């Protein structure tokens, strides 16, 4: 597919915004100053003003309802700049879950707050080191939740937790107040210098949604699709920086980009990145169109993007040689984010396994 004019304009304006207000240097600064919030507040505020926090929020709740293609375009630029915001946790996962499964009251309370940037929402799904939402260990009984969650993005700064848990034989999302008694939050800074948390729930009041199962499914689908776009953008940037390096670094009296061994690897990587981007966009569009095979496309896109981003990060470090190993040089940030983003909401193996299951083999 190809972007329409409106989408192209969004991409262009977001590209400027992120390069301007959310460059890689901000990630480095947040890390080095051990920032309490752990995200780029001025950038988040600029995104609120640009309406991007409400990109998935329906207009009746104060958003712009631009759909997942729009969210993916934002994520792509986030990937290119490694911008640090609660966009994924709040504007994508939170908005998708509440829109799909929230009661009227829950929607009226939280969706405008997402659009206005006054609340941060965190999704808690993983009970273990791997993403396995089909086998949740956290349980809700008699309206109270118990369990332990990991990789809760922006969990330590969240105003609302959306927690995946089993009740009877049904898995669903529940609303939990992070300040409630029995909630213990441990901030876990990850290798990519992003926010995550381990959260323990000990008999905590859990508020059911109108359709918590649909909310969980919608959040996972939206989150994976948007992550595929972010990882594709990350891969593209890592590739382009590496290509630039091949054209300036000299060894043996010539540019290293003249060596066929590197040329062919660069060519292969460029194709992989292009395919990853194309599939991510197609999958986002399939979700917006509610295509029959949207879930298959999203799983494929997340698997592909996870692999390609990691490959791009690995190749980028290798082709930069010694300087690629230094903390002073930015390229390592891309490798770290590729690893973390790839793990989030299901790694490539998990997505491929689910993809095969949906295809019936």
């Amino acid at each position, binding site marked *: *597919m*190809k972007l329409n004019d409106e989408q192209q304009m969004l991409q262009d304006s977001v590209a400027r915004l992120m390069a301007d207000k959310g460059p890689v240097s901000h990630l480095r600064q947040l890390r080095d100053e051990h920032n309490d919030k752990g995200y780029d507040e001025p950038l988040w505020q600029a995104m609120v003003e640009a309406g991007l926090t409400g990109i998935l929020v329906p207009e009746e709740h104060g958003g712009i309802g631009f759909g997942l293609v729009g969210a993916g375009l934002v994520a792509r630029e986030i990937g290119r700049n490694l911008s640090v915001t609660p966009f994924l946790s709040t504007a994508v996962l939170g908005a998708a879950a509440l829109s799909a499964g929230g009661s009227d009251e829950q929607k009226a309370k939280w969706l405008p707050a997402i659009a206005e940037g006054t609340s941060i929402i965190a999704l808690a799904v993983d009970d273990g080191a791997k993403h396995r939402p089909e086998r949740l260990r956290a349980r809700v009984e008699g309206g109270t939740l118990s369990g332990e969650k990991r990789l809760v993005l922006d969990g330590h700064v969240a105003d609302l937790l959306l927690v995946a848990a089993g009740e009877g034989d049904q898995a669903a999302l529940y609303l939990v107040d992070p300040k409630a008694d029995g909630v213990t939050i441990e901030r876990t800074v990850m290798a990519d210098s992003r926010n995550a948390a381990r959260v323990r729930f000990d008999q905590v009041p859990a508020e059911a949604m109108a359709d918590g199962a649909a909310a969980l499914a919608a959040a996972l689908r939206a989150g994976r699709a948007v992550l595929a776009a972010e990882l594709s953008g990350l891969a593209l940037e890592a590739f382009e920086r590496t290509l630039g390096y091949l054209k300036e670094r000299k060894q043996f009296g010539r540019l290293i980009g*003249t060596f066929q061994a590197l040329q062919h690897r660069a*060519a292969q990587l460029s*194709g992989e990145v292009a*395919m990853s981007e*194309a*599939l991510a966009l197609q999958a986002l569009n399939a979700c917006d169109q509610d295509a029959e095979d949207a879930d298959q496309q999203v799983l494929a896109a997340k698997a592909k993007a996870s692999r390609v981003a990691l490959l791009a990060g690995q190749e980028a470090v290798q082709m930069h040689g010694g300087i690629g190993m230094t903390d002073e040089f930015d390229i390592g940030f891309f490798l770290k984010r590729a690893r973390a983003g790839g793990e989030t909401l299901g790694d490539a193996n998990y997505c491929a396994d689910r993809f*095969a299951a949906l295809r019936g*083999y």
Partner: protein
Amino acid sequence: MSDLEQFRAETRAWLDANCPEEMRQPLKSQADHCWGGRKWQFQSEAQKVWMERMAEKGWTAPQWPKEYGGGGLSQEQAEILAEEMKRINARTPVSNFGFWMLGPALLKFGSEELKREHLPPICRGEIRWCQGYSEPNAGSDLASLQTRAEDKGDHFVVNGQKIWTSYADKADWIFCLVRTDPQATKHNGISFVLFDMENEGVSTRPIELISGESPFCETFFDDVKVDKHQVVGELNRGWDVAKYLLTHERNNIGGEPPGFLKGRALGPLAAEYVGTEHGKLADAGLRADIANLEIDHMAFQALVGKIRAEAEAGQGVGAQSAVLKYYGTELNKRRYELMMDALGSEGLEWDSERTLGGLFAREWLRSKGNSIEGGTSEVMLGIVSKRLLGLPDA
């Protein structure tokens, strides 16, 4: 009803009335394909009737102009025709290098006289073409070709040897790259000429491949007379035509895989031979390999769609065709390797009737040529790195 809807309705009705039942089955193997040409033996009356009826409509070459025997269809109409044919599993009525390669070259570079002479017989399935490009010492380095055409006043005399000429022994005419100016630099002295394979001095010898089959020939030219008006494009500018066609050829890759796996999914095929446990393939490694292949294929298709959409918007495909050629053929080779993994010993049977004479193994081996013919994978990566990525020459 919009014009396109009406076209769809009319096309559906016409196909229903005119496509013989026998021609509504998927090909069992490449042997069922109708190539056409003077030497063609129709496998059935239905195959003949189907080709003739489609030719009459101009639908053997749906998008070529009507005055040259084509259907004059727009891109949208051609897509509708393809969809409607697929809906009833209608076979391609006739196809050969005349349709894929020569036709597009003539339409772009040919004189009016050459178009009127050659395009209608292609559309009617009367003349089967082959392609004379590679030579024993000009493979990846095609422009170093040495077959020469000497100017003898009113005609050329061609001498030399071609190799990897697809079905040269079965074709009627050849489009051929020959050196017409030995003094010029290697890309500048080449011309694109056409001649009849029955001309005196043309001989062919099939080459047996690792698949046991012989789709390619060595072709020898010994003082072959060629009419001077049979030059496509300008004299000594044949490389432009060749390059255009190679790009065109590479663009056509990216659809469904050729051969046995066309229209067949690997998952169910593997389930048949490997078995299942709890609804999953009973071989976890193979299952993951198939899933990853299908994911990569889906990503490839998404890129193909994007590149095509950009091409329609006038940005041109250009060197992107090398990307498509590289990934399309590498994916196809992977697919055939997984097919062999799935089939086990049944895939290895070389001549049993059960396997239609070793179809699986032969198609697996045939697929190895995909990343060699039409420009090797390594040549494609070279094109991508230099022309798309702008990496410097050594």
